[in-house]
C-alpha cells in the first residue's frame, strides 16, 4: 500500500487535488508538506483556497491519508430482497410495504433470485471470488426505521470476496496525464435496506416511511488503498459505470440508490495507521471528494495542534463544507451478530458442480452468468480507442457523461466523416455548448442526425469549418431546421465553380497591385479552401 503524497493545487476557481505517486519525489529532504494561505473575504465554499502548511524549521513530517469506502448500492429489481413488495422510488408513504417488511410477527424472509444473480454479476465484474456457500446473519441495533430491530446481512461469509476495481486519476494539469490505480475489494454482501425517517424537529418526532425497508442492497467494501478525495470520487464513479453497465443497480447517488460512507485516517508514512473517523451522509460524488479532503485537513490540523482524533461518526454538511460529529453515535456499537435462523446457507453452483435434474429456477450457475456478462466500461473504452483511434482521455469523457456515448455512436452511424473529426466535434464543440448552458445530453436541441448531416456537409467540402461552426450555433438556437436549410438560408456554401473562383481572385489581385506575390499566392490558396 503506497503512502501517496498529497499535493494541493488550485486551478482558478476549481478545486483540484492531484495525487502524485510518492516515488516521484527526490528524497526526504524535499518534503513537500502543506502550506496554508487564507483568502481574504472568502466565506463561500464554492471557491476553495490553496491549502498548504509552511514547512517548520524542525523539518516537519509529511502526512499520508488513508481512505477506505463502504458503498451501498440498491439492487435494481422488481421486488425486495426477502419479500414480494415492490421496489419503487417515489410512492405514497408505506404503500409498498408487506407484513414482513413491517416486521409483523409470524412472517419469514424468502430470498429473491434476481438479487442473488445481481450480486454474482457484480462480483464477477469486479474480479471477486464467488463463495459457493454464503451465510446470512442478523445485525442488531435499535432505530425507528428498522422495524425488526435487526438487519439481515452477510457478515461471516459474504457472497463475494477479494476483488479489485481499476479507476483512473489525473496526475497533472494536462488532461492527457492520467494514471490507472487499483483499489482492492474486501467483500460484496447482500443486505436489507432500512426505511426512511423524516425528522420533524419542531414537533419533536420522527416520521417513518417503510417503503424502502427490505429493499436489496449490495454492500461493496473497498480496502483503504486510496489517499484523497479525488481518488475516492474516481473509484466511486467507475463503480457507478460498472453497475449501470451490468444493470444490477441504477447507482444514481441523487436518488439514494448509491450511498457511500468513508473511513478516513491520517498518519506519518512509516508509522502505524492513525485513528479513523467515519463520514456519512454523502449523496454526490462531488460532496464525497469535498468531505474527504475536509476531513483529512481537519485531522491533520487537530494532530498538529496536539489534540487526538476520536473514533467517531461524522456527517457532512454540504452548505458549510465541513464535517460535524453525529450525536447518538458515541462509543463503539456492538451489533451482537448472530446467524439468521430462518435462512439456510446460500449455495451456488458452477457447470461442473451443478446437481443433475435440478430445477433451473432453484439453482444459480456462476458459469452461466459469467458467459452472459454485459460489456464493462473498461472494455468499451478499449474498443473506442482501437476502433476510432481516439485518445484514452477522450474515451473517459465519452463514458463519463450520461448519454454522450450513445449520441456519439448515433452520429458515427449516420455520417461519412472521419471518426476523429466526429470525436473532436462531439467532445469539444457539442459538449462545450452543453456545459455552457448546463444541459444534459438528452436535453440537447441538436439531434445526432443533425450533427451527422452537418459533418457530412463539412466532409464533402460544401462548407468551410468556420461556416460549420456558424451553422451549429444556428442549429442550437432554432429547432426544426436542418443544416442544409441553414446553409442555403445564410448562403454559407463554398463556391465550387473553379473558373468563377479564378475570376474573383484575379479581380481582387488587380484591385490591389501593391500586394506582392505572397499575397497573391495566399489569395489563390484561400479561394481553394
Amino acid at each position, binding site marked *: 500500500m503506497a503512502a501517496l503524497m498529497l499535493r494541493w493545487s488550485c486551478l482558478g476557481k476549481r478545486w483540484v487535488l492531484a495525487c502524485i505517486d510518492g516515488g516521484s519525489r527526490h528524497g526526504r529532504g524535499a518534503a513537500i508538506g502543506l502550506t496554508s494561505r487564507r483568502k481574504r473575504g472568502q466565506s463561500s465554499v464554492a471557491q476553495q483556497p490553496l491549502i498548504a502548511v509552511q514547512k517548520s524549521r524542525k523539518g516537519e513530517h509529511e502526512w499520508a491519508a488513508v481512505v477506505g469506502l463502504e458503498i451501498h448500492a440498491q439492487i435494481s429489481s422488481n421486488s425486495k430482497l426477502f419479500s414480494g413488495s415492490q421496489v419503487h422510488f417515489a410512492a405514497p408513504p408505506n404503500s409498498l410495504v408487506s407484513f414482513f417488511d413491517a416486521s409483523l410477527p409470524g412472517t419469514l424472509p424468502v430470498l429473491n433470485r434476481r438479487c442473488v444473480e445481481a450480486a454474482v454479476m457484480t462480483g464477477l465484474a469486479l474480479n471477486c471470488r464467488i463463495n459457493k456457500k454464503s451465510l446470512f446473519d442478523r445485525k442488531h441495533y435499535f432505530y425507528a426505521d428498522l422495524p425488526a430491530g435487526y438487519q439481515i446481512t452477510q457478515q461471516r461469509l459474504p457472497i463475494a470476496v477479494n476483488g479489485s476495481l481499476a479507476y483512473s486519476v489525473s496526475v497533472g494539469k494536462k488532461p492527457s496525464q492520467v494514471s490507472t490505480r487499483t483499489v482492492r475489494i474486501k467483500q460484496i454482501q447482500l443486505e436489507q435496506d432500512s426505511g426512511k425517517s423524516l425528522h420533524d424537529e419542531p414537533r419533536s418526532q420522527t*416520521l417513518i416511511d417503510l417503503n424502502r425497508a427490505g429493499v436489496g442492497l449490495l454492500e461493496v467494501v473497498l480496502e483503504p488503498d486510496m489517499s484523497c478525495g479525488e481518488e475516492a470520487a474516481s473509484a466511486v464513479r467507475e463503480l457507478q459505470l460498472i453497475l449501470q453497465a451490468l444493470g444490477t443497480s441504477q447507482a444514481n447517488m441523487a436518488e439514494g440508490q448509491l450511498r457511500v460512507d468513508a473511513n478516513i485516517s491520517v498518519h506519518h508514512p512509516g508509522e502505524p495507521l492513525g485513528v479513523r473517523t467515519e463520514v456519512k451522509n454523502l449523496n454526490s460524488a462531488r460532496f464525497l471528494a469535498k468531505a474527504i479532503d475536509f476531513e483529512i485537513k481537519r485531522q491533520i490540523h487537530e494532530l498538529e495542534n496536539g489534540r487526538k482524533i476520536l473514533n467517531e461518526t461524522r456527517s457532512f454538511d454540504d452548505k458549510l463544507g465541513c464535517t460535524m*460529529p453525529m450525536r447518538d453515535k458515541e462509543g463503539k456499537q456492538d451489533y451482537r451478530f448472530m446467524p439468521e435462523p430462518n435462512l439456510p446457507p446460500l449455495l451456488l453452483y458452477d457447470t461442473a458442480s451443478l446437481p443433475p435434474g435440478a430445477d433451473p429456477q432453484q439453482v444459480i450457475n456462476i458459469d452461466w452468468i459469467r458467459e452472459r456478462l454485459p460489456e464493462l466500461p473498461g472494455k468499451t473504452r478499449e474498443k473506442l480507442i482501437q476502433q476510432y483511434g481516439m485518445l484514452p482521455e477522450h474515451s473517459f469523457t465519452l463514458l463519463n457523461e450520461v448519454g454522450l456515448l450513445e449520441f456519439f455512436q448515433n452520429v458515427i452511424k449516420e455520417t461519412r466523416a472521419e471518426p476523429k473529426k466526429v470525436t473532436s466535434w462531439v467532445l469539444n464543440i457539442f459538449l462545450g455548448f452543453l456545459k455552457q448552458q448546463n444541459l444534459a445530453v438528452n436535453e440537447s436541441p441538436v439531434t445526432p442526425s443533425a450533427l451527422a448531416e452537418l459533418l457530412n456537409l463539412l466532409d464533402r467540402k460544401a462548407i468551410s469549418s468556420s461556416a460549420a461552426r456558424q451553422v451549429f450555433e444556428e442549429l442550437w438556437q432554432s429547432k426544426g431546421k436542418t443544416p442544409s436549410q441553414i446553409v442555403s438560408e445564410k448562403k454559407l456554401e463554398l463556391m465550387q465553380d473553379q473558373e468563377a473562383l479564378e475570376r474573383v481572385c484575379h479581380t481582387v489581385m488587380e484591385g490591389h497591385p501593391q500586394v506582392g506575390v505572397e499575397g497573391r499566392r495566399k489569395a489563390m490558396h484561400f479561394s481553394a479552401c
Partner: protein
Amino acid sequence: MSSLLSAPSALREDALRRLKREMWARAVKLGLRSWVGWRRGFTSKADPQRSGRVTAEVIEHLERLALVDFGSLEAVARLEKAIAFADRLRAVDTDGVEPMESVLEDRCLYLRSDNVVEGNCAEELLQNAHRVVEEYFVAPPGNISLPKQDEQEPFSHI
C-alpha cells in the same frame, strides 16, 4: 417432623412457631449469602475456567443494547443461573466435529422469482400504530446529525 404430629397440640404449636422462625432465619441467611455471593462473585462449580459472575458493567451494556431492564437482583441472579445451565454444554467433547450453521443447514434455500405480489396495505399496517401522521408512522426523535449553529466545532474550514 413425624414426632411433632403425634405430640399434644400446645406443644405442637410451640414447635411449629420455633420451626417457622428457624426456617425464616435460614431463608434470610440463604438470601443474604446469595446476595453477597452476587456482589463478590462466585465461581461456578460446573466450569472452573470461567467465573459465573456477570459484572455491573456488562449488565449496563446489555440494558442499553437490548433495551431490557434488569431491575432487580433476582433478575441478574436468574441470568447467571441461565448462563450456568447453558454452560453445561461445554461438558460435551466436540473435538474434530464441524459446527452447524443452523438446524436448517441441509435444507434447500428457496429462491423466489422477482415478481411483485405484496404491498398496498398501508391502511392495515397503520392500524397497528399508536400514532400516525398522514400515513407515516410516528417515532420519537433520534440521531439528528447536524448540531445547531452555536454548537459548531471551533475548527472551521480554512
